[in-house]
C-alpha cells in the first residue's frame, strides 16, 4: 500500500556523509528516554529497528487515544526508524530477538532494571553470541543502584535530583520543569554513551554495557545550583528568575503591557547598551552602576529601573528598542509561537508534513546538525509492524512462510 502521508520535497544529503551509516540498532525503547537516543541515532544515519510488542509501545497506545494531542509525540519521536512487532513474553519471540542481537551493533532498552535479565536477554547472554555488541540500558538510577527497584518517572527524578527544589519563586513551593528534562537528559546521554562505545569498538573490537541513569544525567545541569549552594554555605532557596549563581544583574523577567520579556545583562558593555536604551526612554539611570558587583549590591534598584522601562510598553516596543540598541532581551514566548517559528524551518529542525488524521505536523529532526546538509532524508514514523517483512525476511533471512507462521502464532 502506498504511503499516503506526505513528506515535503527536500534536498538529499550525501549518504556517505551520514555519520553513523552502517550501524544497526535494535531499539526496545519506550516513551521518551531511549526513543530519543534512537531518534538521534536514526537521524545520524544508523539503521534503527524499533521493536514493539504486538499492541505497540506505550507512546503509540497513547497516540491511539489522541487525547489532548497525545498523538503527536509518537510521530516526532520515531521518525526514520523501521518498525517491527515482537512478543518477548513467549520463547519464540525471545529467540527472534537473540537472532537480531547477534547481527546488530547496538541494542537499546529502557525497561525497569532487571527486566531484560529476567527475560534471559541480559547483556551477558547477548554478549555470548555477539561479543562486540554495544548493549545500552537507561534506567532511573543505573544498574546495581542503592535504590533497588524504585520506579523512576520524569517527575520523580526531578523531585529526587533537587531540580524541583531549585525551581520556582521564593516563598512558593518547589515546582517541576514543564519539560520532561529527566527523560531527555537520559536520552541524550544514552546516545553519547552508545557512540562513545562505538568509537572504541572501531579501534579495539570491544563491546560494552552502557549504563545511563536518569538521575546521573540530570545532575550535571545542577552545577550552577551546587556552586551557589556551597558558595553561600546554605541550602539554596528558589531564586525565581534571578541569576542562580548571583553572577549577573540586571538578569530577570520583566512584565510588559502585553506579556513578559527577559533582559539578561552579563557584561558591562551590555549594561551600557541597556543604560542608553533606558535614557532614550527618558528613564534616569543613576551613577555608580558600572561593574556587576555594584549592580548586584543594588539589585532591587536595578530591577526597578528595567521594570520602569518595560511595564508601560508592549513586548514588541521593548524588543524593537532593545534590538536597535543591541541589548540582550528576548520575549517570554508561548509554545504556540515557538512551534510556528520560521527560524526552526529555515534551520531545518522542523519539517512540516501532512499526516492523515493529525493534519499539518512539524516533524522534528535531530538537533545534531552536520555541516550544511549532512542530514539523512526524512522518513515518517513507522506504522505498527510496517517493516516486519523487511527485517525478518530480508535482513534476518527467515522465509516468508516462517514469517507467516510467526504471525499466526502471535510472535510478531
Amino acid at each position, binding site marked *: 500500500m502506498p504511503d499516503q502521508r506526505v513528506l515535503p520535497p527536500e534536498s538529499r544529503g550525501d549518504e556517505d556523509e551520514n555519520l553513523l551509516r552502517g550501524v544497526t540498532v535494535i531499539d526496545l525503547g519506550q516513551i521518551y528516554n531511549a526513543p530519543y537516543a534512537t531518534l538521534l541515532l536514526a537521524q545520524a544515519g544508523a539503521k534503527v529497528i524499533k521493536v514493539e510488542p504486538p499492541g505497540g509501545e506505550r507512546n503509540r497506545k497513547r497516540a491511539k487515544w489522541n487525547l*489532548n494531542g497525545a498523538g503527536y509525540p509518537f510521530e516526532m519521536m520515531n521518525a526514520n526508524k523501521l518498525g517491527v512487532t515482537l512478543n518477548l513474553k513467549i520463547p519464540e519471540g525471545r529467540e527472534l530477538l537473540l537472532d537480531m542481537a547477534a547481527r546488530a551493533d547496538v541494542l537499546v532498552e529502557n525497561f525497569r532494571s532487571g527486566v531484560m535479565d529476567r527475560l534471559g536477554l541480559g547483556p551477558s547472554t547477548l554478549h555470548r553470541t555477539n561479543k562486540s555488541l554495544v548493549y545500552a540500558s537507561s534506567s532511573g538510577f543505573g544498574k546495581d543502584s542503592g535504590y533497588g527497584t524504585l520506579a523512576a518517572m520524569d517527575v520523580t527524578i526531578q*523531585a529526587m535530583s533537587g531540580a524541583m527544589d531549585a525551581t520556582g519563586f521564593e516563598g512558593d513551593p518547589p515546582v517541576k520543569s514543564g519539560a520532561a528534562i529527566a527523560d531527555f537528559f537520559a536520552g541524550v546521554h544514552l546516545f553519547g554513551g552508545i557512540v562513545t562505545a562505538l568509537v572504541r569498538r572501531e579501534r579495539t573490537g570491544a563491546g560494552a554495557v*552502557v549504563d545511563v541513569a536518569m538521575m546521573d544525567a540530570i545532575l550535571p545541569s545542577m552545577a550552577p545550583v551546587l556552586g551557589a549552594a556551597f558558595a553561600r554555605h546554605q541550602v539554596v532557596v528558589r531564586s525565581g528568575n534571578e541569576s542562580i549563581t548571583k553572577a549577573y544583574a540586571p538578569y530577570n523577567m520583566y512584565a510588559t503591557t502585553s506579556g*513578559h520579556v527577559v533582559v539578561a545583562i552579563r557584561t558591562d558593555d551590555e549594561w551600557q547598551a541597556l543604560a542608553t536604551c533606558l535614557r532614550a526612554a527618558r528613564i534616569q539611570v543613576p551613577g555608580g552602576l558600572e561593574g556587576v558587583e555594584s549592580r548586584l549590591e543594588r539589585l532591587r534598584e536595578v530591577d526597578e529601573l528595567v521594570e520602569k522601562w518595560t511595564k508601560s510598553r508592549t513586548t514588541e516596543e521593548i524588543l524593537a528598542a532593545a534590538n536597535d540598541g543591541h541589548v540582550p532581551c528576548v520575549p517570554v514566548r508561548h509554545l504556540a509561537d515557538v512551534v510556528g517559528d520560521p527560524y526552526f524551518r529555515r534551520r531545518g529542525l522542523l519539517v512540516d508534513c501532512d499526516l492523515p488524521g493529525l493534519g499539518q505536523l512539524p516533524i522534528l529532526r535531530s538537533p545534531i546538525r552536520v555541516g550544511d546538509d549532512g542530514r539523512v532524508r526524512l522518513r515518517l514514523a513507522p506504522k505498527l509492524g510496517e517493516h516486519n517483512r523487511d527485517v525478518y525476511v530480508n535482513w534476518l533471512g527467515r522465509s516468508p512462510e516462517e514469517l507467516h507462521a510467526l504471525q499466526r502464532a502471535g510472535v510478531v
Partner: protein
Amino acid sequence: MSDVRSHAGHEEFCLPLEGYRFLEVGTSEGTCYVGFLAALAGASVCRVEMPGGEGGLGPPHNEAVALELGLLNVNKRSIVLDLVGDKGRTVFLDLVGQADVVFGDFGPRMDALGLAPETLFAAKPELVCGSLTPAGRTGELPELTSAELAIQAYVGLMSVTGFPSNPPVQVGPAVAAFFSGAHLYDGIVSGLFHRERTGRGCIIDIAMLDSLYPALMSNIGLVLGGPFNPTPREGNRNAGQACAPYNMYETSTGYVALRVSRDEHWQALVGLFETDHIGVPPGLESMADRVASVDLVDEIVGAWTRRRSTTEACAAIDAAGVPCGPVRTIGEVVQDPHLRTRGIVVDRSHAGGLPIGLQTPLRFYGETPPPLGDAPSPSEHDFDVLGEWLGVSPEDVAELRATSVLRGPDVH
C-alpha cells in the same frame, strides 16, 4: 593503548576516547560540559582560554561560578592564549593541527578572528569541529544572547513552568547549556566514529534553541492537539491532563512527588487510604474520572500524605508499586549515600573547591571511569601542552609568556 579485545569479560578496558586530543575553546557551561564528558571518557582535553573570554564574559568573578566551573573542568589542562595577536593565532592553528577535535563557542568573536569552524575544517579535512552557539551557525538569529534565562524564555520553556497563578519561571538546572553541551558531545563522537571509518572529519553545528526544543515534546503535543491554552502552566500536575493523581503532595516534613499512570496504581493507593480511614468516594476508578475530578483526587492523596513524613510516605507508596520520590533539597541530594555507591557523587577534599565532585553520567557497566582530578588553574599547562603537542621548548614557552602571547599565571 592496552589490549581490550576481551569485551564483556571486563579484564581490561581502555578508556573509550583514550588517545584523542580535544581542544576546548570558550567559557560557556555547555562547552565546558563537552570537555568534561570527553575528559572522563579518556580524551586528552586542553582548554584554550582567551583573556576576556568569548563574548567578553571573562573569567568567573564570583565564588558560585568558580565552584561550578571547578566541577566541570576536572581532568582537563589549560592554556591562556591571546588569539587577537597573529602570534597567538599561529600557536592556536598549530594546536588545531595536532588535535582530533576542536570545539566550543564559535560565535561572532571567533569569526572575526578568522577562526571560524569552516576555516579550520577547510585547512584540515580530517578535523572534527564542534560549534555551540545560541541559534546555530546559519545566521538566522545572529544577535540572540546565550544567557540561560533568555534561551529558556525564547524556546517557551518558562511559559510552561510554574504554577498557573504565578508568572512564568525559569527551570533551576541550566538546561539550555547542558542540553546543548550534551548534543554537541554526541555530534562530536559521531564525527569521530565516521572519521575512524572514512578518514574524513566534519563540522557539528549545535544551536541551544534546537537542543532544548525536543524536551518540550509533551507540551508541544498539547499545543498542536487542541485550542491554544492561554495558561499552559500546570505547576506540578501533568501538563497533558492525562494522569491523575500526578502531583507533589505535602507531608509532615516536606513533599513527595507521585505519578499514577495506570488504574491499578490508583487501586493500590486506595488500599493505603482505607487503612487510614480516608474515605474515597465512588466514581474515581478510571483515569478519565480522576482527571475530571483532579482537585478532589489531590485532596484525598494530600490528606493521606500530610499524616506522615516524606520517608514514611515514600516507603508506603513505593511498596504499593506506585512511582514516587521525595522532593529533596539540594542539601539532601548532596548527602545521598546511594549516589556515592553509584559513584556519580564523589567526596573530595580540595582546598577552595567544592567538598564533592561529579563523575560522568556516561557509564560503562563493569568499567571504572578515571579518578576525578582537579580543575586546572588558567595557564597551568602552557609548558606541558605546547611541549607535548607541538614540541615547543620550555625556553620558547617562557618567551611566549614574556611577549604575552601566552598570558601565563601572573595575570590571574
